[in-house]
């Protein structure tokens, strides 16, 4: 199934929640959706036998800039039907919150923890929500554009970036 038809079916079902179909700049066409409806759309994508997205390849966060929003991007793949789709959603910078899909795809478990670790996005309903790569008491979210590297961590000096 092509990405266009997936998007048209999705937008037929969810209406306003699908904001746009992105295929110009992106090499992986997909839908930009409303973050509050993420869970419903993901359930549809996974459970509907026409889509059958049984594999979540990647969950990544990105930051559009110090003033703009944070983004989440989900790359989906169906092993059984061999098609792809991308779900993108934008989150409020001050209170980034989105539903966790870790219970649907276990891949998302660690990937979401990593996004939290790096961007501070809160995933609601995640089974084991904590930092993964950095220490529990690390301050700030390093991959945000407004992150200021700390001088010290527990009394240890942190090497400066060039």
């Amino acid at each position, binding site marked *: 199934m092509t990405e266009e038809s997936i998007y048209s079916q999705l937008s037929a079902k969810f209406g306003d929640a699908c904001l746009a179909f992105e295929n110009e*700049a*992106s*090499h*992986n066409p997909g839908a930009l959706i409303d973050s509050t409806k993420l869970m419903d759309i993901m359930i549809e994508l996974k459970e509907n036998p026409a889509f059958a997205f*049984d*594999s*979540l*390849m*990647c969950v*990544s966060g*990105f*930051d559009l800039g110090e003033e703009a929003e944070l983004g989440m*991007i989900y*790359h989906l793949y169906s*092993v059984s039907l*061999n098609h792809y789709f*991308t779900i993108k959603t934008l989150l409020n910078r001050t209170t980034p919150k989105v539903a966790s899909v870790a219970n649907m*795809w*276990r*891949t998302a*478990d*660690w*990937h979401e923890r990593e996004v939290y670790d*790096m961007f501070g996005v809160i995933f609601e309903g995640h089974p084991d929500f904590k930092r*993964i*790569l*950095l*220490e529990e008491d690390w301050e700030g979210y*390093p*991959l945000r554009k407004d992150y200021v590297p700390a001088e010290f961590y527990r009394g240890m000096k942190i090497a400066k*970036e*060039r």
Partner: protein
Amino acid sequence: MGRLHTEEMILNMGPQHPSTHGVLRLKLITDGEIVSHVEPVIGYLHRSFEKHAENLEYQMVSPFVDRADYIAAMNNGHAYAIAVEKMLGIELPPRVEYIRVIMAEFQRIASHLIAVGTFGLDVGGITPFIYCMRERELILDLFEMASGARLLYNYIWIGGLAHDLPAGWVEKAYEFLDEFDFHVEEYNRILTTNKIFIERTADVGVLPVEVAINYGVTGPNLRGSGIPFDVRKNQPYSFYDRFEWKVPVGEGAMGSVGDSWDRYMVRIEEMLESAKIIRQALDQLPAEGDVKAAIPKKIRPPKGAEIYSRYENPRGELGFYIRSDGTNIPTRVKMRSPAFSNISALNEISQGWMMSDVITILGSLDIVLGEIDR
């Protein structure tokens, strides 16, 4: 007599344990020898690759990419180069693509040799490891000839290669391939068919297909579970659609499908398939040709361009999510490393097995901590 009072014990394995393949820490909850819960704790080798990448030009990122999975540096460089080239829409000369395929497959063999060898080490056989390292050394010699380095090559660049192949390289590669089948037979004799090894690995840590897909397990681990999924076949990149080879899958020859032995065996067979690919690529390699495509000096993908490119790393699907803001510095480089997803399934498949089996399963998953922590 009443029931014996038993208690669960928390056992800390690592980060300095000999069998955790680096600095991985496993929190085991054990009941005697039986393990009831495994929690991998990662991050000890975190080198903030993604943060680095946000401050460097596209070209400068590639040496850092090599360091993420230091066992398969060539593959990582290839994956990154492919991702950026797709963003720029560059066509490469055929010689470059052939050499890249040859290098990537040699690296796959080298990486699998380490996987096979260390797996032998995990179940207690020291000698197979040394044999594997011996063959790997020959591959590294080839790499050294071509790129000048033995571990972190930075050979595959965006838009081409660092150097052309030196004279005599192709002959040496053929020489290695001629010897290689015999050596694989040796591993089979000392390890694969060994009854103790089979007892240790067959039926241990069975990873069912649904669980594997759900956990995002890819590469030999997924194929060990019986699905012939390989990015090189399903979404061919580079010149992989020009070669004849098959995707080995686990068949449960010694136990059930998806056990540790299957995962191991897929690697052994994959080495032979890679050797086949290399042979074909060497046969088809154009004798002359430029190894650098015409790329702009400053790599500036269009503003807002983004890509998620998949690549078949020795450990599975290596994805690069790259986002551009129109400058020569990427705004976001996310590396979806295969081992990161593979190891997250560890708890699921090692529950109820013995402590020794956890090590076997960990070895059969073939993790590289540099890639997990990035």
